[in-house]
């Protein structure tokens, strides 16, 4: 049997949806499952991790793990992987996963694959599928060693509501602090806003919004829809949107039910970050904008006219 360890994706103390998605997939593959939670005040998450589909919960809970630091985080995951004799370690798509996975792979002498969208196991043959070249191709990759550490792309797997596990908590010793890379401070972007990675609807703003007033207009639409609020690279460069709002190849990868691209032309790097959306609505005044080549619904028009109208129509249907 294959043992799959899923690293709990925790943000501001809450378990993110990706953890249940990964555990459901692991169980669908017939694997034995465990989860590992690393952080401060994370011990309380054990019942949730069991309910999400893990049969063992490794907990590394220590005040020193309050702010993410890659080396101790990876050390705790490695300890759990060894205790569980994990054949695979899966991370949800996050900066935490991207920073920790290569370290864990080196320490476990495992192969490492990021942004995977599928895993297949056929006897001893293991393959993964992942997009590459800004999502323009898919690679099928054969894993040549017994162990694999993977970061799973957002939206790749679905959580099965029928899946559940059993509670069996194993407490890990807190890992040593990294004295050579000391995290001094976290400038939090916790603002009560909806997390892009988890949002069912994402509204993103692009260069077409021009200035702060334009951004505010689109933000209002996002708020009306209870949507995550994202951005194109151009708006981040212009200082109108924060770095952590950037959707794209190097920013956030999102896979919501509905992605609303407002005033975004649709550069390849941006498309690579939102290609997994179920439905895309684009608003752009340029009928030739590349975004219309991928949008399921396109409105050709000035966003300053269209966004207020969208707000009005949505108000009507929500009434």
């Amino acid at each position, binding site marked *: 049997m294959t043992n799959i360890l899923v690293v709990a994706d925790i943000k501001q103390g809450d378990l993110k949806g990706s953890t249940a998605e990964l555990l459901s997939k692991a169980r669908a593959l017939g694997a034995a499952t465990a989860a590992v939670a690393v952080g401060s005040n994370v011990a309380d998450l054990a019942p949730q991790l069991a309910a999400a589909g893990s049969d063992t919960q490794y907990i590394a809970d220590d005040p020193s793990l309050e*702010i*993410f630091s*890659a*080396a101790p985080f990876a050390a705790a995951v490695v300890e759990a992987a060894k205790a569980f004799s994990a054949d695979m370690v899966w991370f949800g798509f*996050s*900066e935490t996963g*991207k*920073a920790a996975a*290569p370290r864990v*792979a*080196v320490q476990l002498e495992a192969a*490492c694959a*990021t942004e995977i969208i599928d895993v297949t196991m056929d006897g001893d043959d293991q*393959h993964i599928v992942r*997009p590459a*070249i*800004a*999502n*323009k*191709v*898919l*690679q*099928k*990759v*054969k*894993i*040549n*060693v017994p162990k694999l550490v993977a970061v799973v792309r957002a939206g790749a797997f679905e959580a099965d509501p029928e899946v559940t596990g059993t509670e069996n908590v194993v407490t890990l010793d807190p890992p040593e602090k*990294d*004295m*050579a*890379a*000391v*995290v*001094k401070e*976290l*400038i*939090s972007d*916790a603002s009560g806003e909806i997390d892009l990675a988890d949002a069912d609807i994402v509204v993103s703003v692009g260069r077409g919004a021009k200035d702060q007033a334009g951004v505010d207009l689109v933000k209002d639409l996002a708020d009306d829809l209870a949507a995550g609020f994202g951005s194109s690279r151009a708006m981040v460069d212009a200082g109108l949107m924060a*770095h952590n709002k950037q959707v794209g190849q*190097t920013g956030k990868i999102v896979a919501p039910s*509905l992605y609303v691209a407002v005033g975004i032309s649709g550069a*390849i790097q941006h498309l690579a970050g939102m*290609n997994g959306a*179920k*439905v895309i609505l684009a608003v752009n005044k340029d009928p030739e904008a590349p975004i*219309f*080549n*991928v949008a*399921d*619904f*396109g*409105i*050709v*028009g000035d966003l300053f006219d269209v966004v207020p*109208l*969208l707000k009005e*129509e*949505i108000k009507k*249907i929500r009434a």
Partner: protein
Amino acid sequence: MKILTTVKKVVDVELNIHVENGAIVEKGLQYVINAWDENAVEAAVQLKEANKAETTLVSLGSGDNTDIIRKCYAMGIDNAIHIDDPALAKADSPTFAKVLQKVYEAGDYDLVIAGKQAQDTDAGQAGIMLGEFLGIPCVSNVIEIKVTDDTHIQVSRLGDAGTEIVDVTLPAVITVSDSINEPRLPAMRGIMMAKKKKITVMDLAGLGTSVEEIGGTAPTSGIVEFMPTQKRKGGQKFEGDPAEITAQVVQLLVNEAKVL
């Protein structure tokens, strides 16, 4: 301070990529410097300008990388090494990291600056693995670097919960986000000077290693085939009276797509 930056020559992602019989069609492809490596080069040159650093660039590949190296020279890089070996044509991330380890050990570097990922693989592993192999700290996805003193830097990293401020003891590896800077366009004087500069080219043997030693003969994983991505198709595009088409589209989102 001695800085090593890494660059990779990658396929230009702006062009169309076609897949046939499990392979990428080579015809019509163009190769450019990896965009994030350009950010790494710019970061190194900025540190040199502010702190009197010596900057060395290493490019890995199989084939001629003269064009991208000249560009980095023109941006202000002092020295360049190109590791040219056919064994690197299909190397995976740990193999690249092992080669970088050899380059690092042959010099006396304080800081390695790499792009956070290569735009052809989007793997984002080599820089972090290099830090791991060397047993020195690595901070990834960095958006700012400040020099504290000869042996310390402070970096800002974009993490899941916000911006992490990290005090790093050198030597260390940093991988940079494209948000860190806007790479300069080289001036004509720099371009002319770059043409005269020497590029040190060597193969794996010249570096004092072998395909076996860097894991090239037993890679942990290998691509068996490429497949085309399922292309999204453009759907319905509406033009005309804004109020009318907006109402129409919202109805479709509710009744047809069922996402509102």
